[in-house]
């Protein structure tokens, strides 16, 4: 299926956003200097893990 120029641009922007979020967000949340009380992904409120 051929994608239009517009669709390609949207996909490119979406991917850029995702990868930027991973790098910037990942550094901000999980870097060694972040002394947040819980410097690990946590599941306290996660519905997903209510099943365990």
């Amino acid at each position, binding site marked *: 299926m051929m994608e239009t120029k517009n669709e390609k641009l949207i996909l490119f922007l979406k991917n850029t956003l995702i990868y930027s979020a*991973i790098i910037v967000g990942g550094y901000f*949340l999980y870097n060694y200097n972040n002394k*947040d009380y819980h410097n690990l*992904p946590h*599941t306290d*409120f996660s*519905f997903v893990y209510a*099943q365990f």
Partner: protein
Amino acid sequence: MLPFTDIDFFLFALLYVVTVWLFGLITHKKHYPAITFALTLIYFIFYFRYTMAALGFALVTFLYIRFLSQKVNHRLVSAIIIAIPMVLLKVHLNPSFLYFAGLSFITFRAIQVSIDYSKDDRLNFMHYFNFLFFIPSFYIGPLDRYKRFTENSVNGYQSIGTATTLSGLQEFIKGVTYKFIVAELISRYWLQHSLEEGLAAGARTSDIYAYAFYLFFDFAGYSSMAVGMANLVGISLPFNFNKPFIAINPPDFWQRWHASLTSWLGDYFFKPFYKWLNGFQKLKKNPIAKQNLAIFFTLFIMGIWNGFESNFIWSGIIYGIYSVIHNTYVIQCRKKDKDVIFGNLNPKMVKYISIVLMFHLICIALYVFSGRYQ
């Protein structure tokens, strides 16, 4: 080992994908179901805490579906029998030997097989086991269908290619971003961590929206990782989330939010229940009431399958009320041949108003579901 959370699980997932690929090369793309079956057994032996209960459940339900379910007159009875361990768990009466992580979703899958099973089908234990315990979607879905999954699984190696691998990776990375970045940011910096009584109205309102977004990014992230990992090994799982916050009405929302469970409930609860209601003379004369009853109880189940705690019961009631009101509105519009609420308002405007209204209603319903109001 929590799926798609603990590092151990990600390492196992990597091992799983690489092993499936390697065996594809060694066996010249044959024996896909046997290879995934063996890998799941390895997972059960080395990583799973509830191996015996899970294997026991698979074996007993397989034997029941294969040899006994045809003798039980009503398929609903079969479904109830299979659901017994799950119901016991929900009322906190489950003996530990019957419990295993992921029991609810495994039960949904087993019920689906038991309802769809007919004497002409040759139910194979390996395929059944693979369907119940397919590692990426084992714990929380998305919920697939036995026939589709098995056909896909038999031709698993034929489905692995550059395109599926790339789309799988893309979906997986999207899931990681949703769960480990966006949901985590919301959880750390937006959600209220102490919900003491007398929380200011502003903080409470903010918490309502925070929870809706948190739940979406956490659950959709989990589902995307599951779909992505499945794609990497050649299995196409159904999607679970599709921009639910731009839904324009309750049915639209349920097509976008936990869609695989909605579709499961539609096929295995709504339709048989609606048919069953046909047996009541009074309801035969009032099809609208019959429709609304079936809709209400389907959405009620959507809430209470999580448990019999008051927040789940109330959330089920709220989901049901939303949908019944919407259904009545649609019927009235059709009867009077005009929009009974918005009149002649511009359809685009109606759409935007509906999205805003629905968004707020969803946030309130999800907050009730969370139990954070207590």
